[in-house]
């Protein structure tokens, strides 16, 4: 079993791939590496045992497989759940094979080898494993081929494709825009939140009912709108005012709650 297992390993395309190096039968020394998955490990073990894939010595392979997983655990390699699932599958097949066959079934051709499903999966997996080797070879070749370096075309350097004149013109435009903005800022009338609450309160108690949409529409700027919104939230929380809405998406009305009746 420990005789040159490396020879059996078809894919050497990843040097770090796990390999089992010599050692006594119960103590395997492991050169750390990864198996791509439980099927990969299983194929490796079958090769190592020089077993026929169509007639897998299930008991022996299961033992090896479980031993390997213990080893991985012992070496503190997190054993993925998928590896454990496979161990369970192997043990299940092993026990099925130990059970005496139903004599009536044996005579019929219908008897199905409990290993069949696993063999099918292994064969399919093997194809993709070979395909991945092909892909690996292709990239290796591809990495030996070089295209030309980037050409510094105008297209690649669009932002430099402008004269000093262009830049000055754009800068002037920006300055002009800023001047307008400053004007607007001077004209803006700031209203504080407490002022807004006062106004709102006065309006509600004067009119008893206030449609908040009307109130919002009276606002002059974005800033005022935000202040108004906060004021409404605040007033509902602190004062005897409630928000009502007759139907979904309908108008929202602010109402003063008269003492005693409101709740």
């Amino acid at each position, binding site marked *: 079993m420990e005789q040159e297992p490396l020879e059996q390993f*078809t894919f050497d395309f*990843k040097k770090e*791939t796990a390999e089992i190096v010599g050692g006594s039968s119960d103590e395997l020394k492991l050169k750390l590496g*990864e198996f*791509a*998955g*439980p*099927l*990969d490990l299983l194929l490796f073990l079958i090769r190592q045992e020089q077993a026929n*894939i169509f007639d897998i010595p299930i008991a022996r392979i299961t033992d090896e497989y479980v031993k390997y997983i213990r080893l991985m655990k012992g070496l503190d390699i997190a054993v*993925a*759940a*998928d*590896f454990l699932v*496979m161990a369970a599958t192997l043990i299940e097949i092993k026990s099925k094979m130990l059970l005496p066959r139903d004599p009536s079934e044996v005579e019929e051709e219908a008897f199905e080898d409990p290993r069949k499903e696993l063999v099918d*999966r292994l*064969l*399919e*997996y*093997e*194809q*993709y*494993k*070979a*395909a*991945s*080797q*092909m*892909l*690996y070879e*292709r*990239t*290796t*070749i*591809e*990495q*030996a*081929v*070089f*295209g*030309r370096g*980037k*050409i510094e075309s105008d297209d690649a350097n669009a932002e430099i494709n402008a004269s000093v004149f262009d830049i000055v013109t754009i800068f002037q435009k920006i300055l002009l825009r800023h001047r307008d903005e400053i004007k607007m800022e001077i004209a803006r009338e700031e209203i504080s939140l407490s002022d807004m609450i006062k106004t709102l309160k006065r309006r509600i108690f004067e009119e008893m009912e206030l449609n908040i949409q009307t109130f919002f529409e009276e606002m002059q700027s974005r800033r005022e709108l935000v202040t108004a919104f906060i004021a409404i939230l605040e007033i509902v929380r602190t004062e005897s005012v409630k928000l009502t809405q007759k139907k979904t998406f309908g108008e929202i009305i602010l109402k003063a709650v008269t003492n005693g009746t409101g709740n």
Partner: protein
Amino acid sequence: MEPETETATEAVTDTADENFARSMAELVAIVEALIFVADEPITTKLLSEVIEEERDSVEAAVVELQKEYETRESGLQIREIAGGWQIATRTELHEDVRKFLKTRPSAKLSLASLETLAVIAYKQPVTVPEILEIRGVQSASAIKTLLEKRLIVTKGHKETVGRPMQYGTSKEFLIQFGLKDLNELPSIEDFEDLAG
């Protein structure tokens, strides 16, 4: 080259004579310049649109160019990649080219990523559970890597329970693996004997 392209060459030289457009030599030169300048593999369609020539004549010119490079054992080659044409160095010269560029082969894909990519390439469009069934192992991180490397792309949801996302290979995959198109991949059944 392939027999079909041979016949194309003949057919085109005929039409070129009739049209009195550009000579074959001229076409070859223009086509060479455009392939050289293009950032990505340039398609015959695009070439023919730019130079306003029949696709057949363009194709013939590229094949002719390809032959010229081969005959004089040029350091460059014209390759058909991802449905387009590309000018690139010859594989054999990689050592000297690398020495000059001071590059090393870039990080290779892990075994798990390669396997996942193989399954996606052959089974596309394919869902994560379907990949799991073949590989016998979760492929989430491999799929993430492949998406990051833009080798695979999402191909919409499968209309089945849970509507799982489907994946397929990208144009980048063809470029990085030097493939003309997906049909150039050997059929999966061909691996049967190789594997055993």
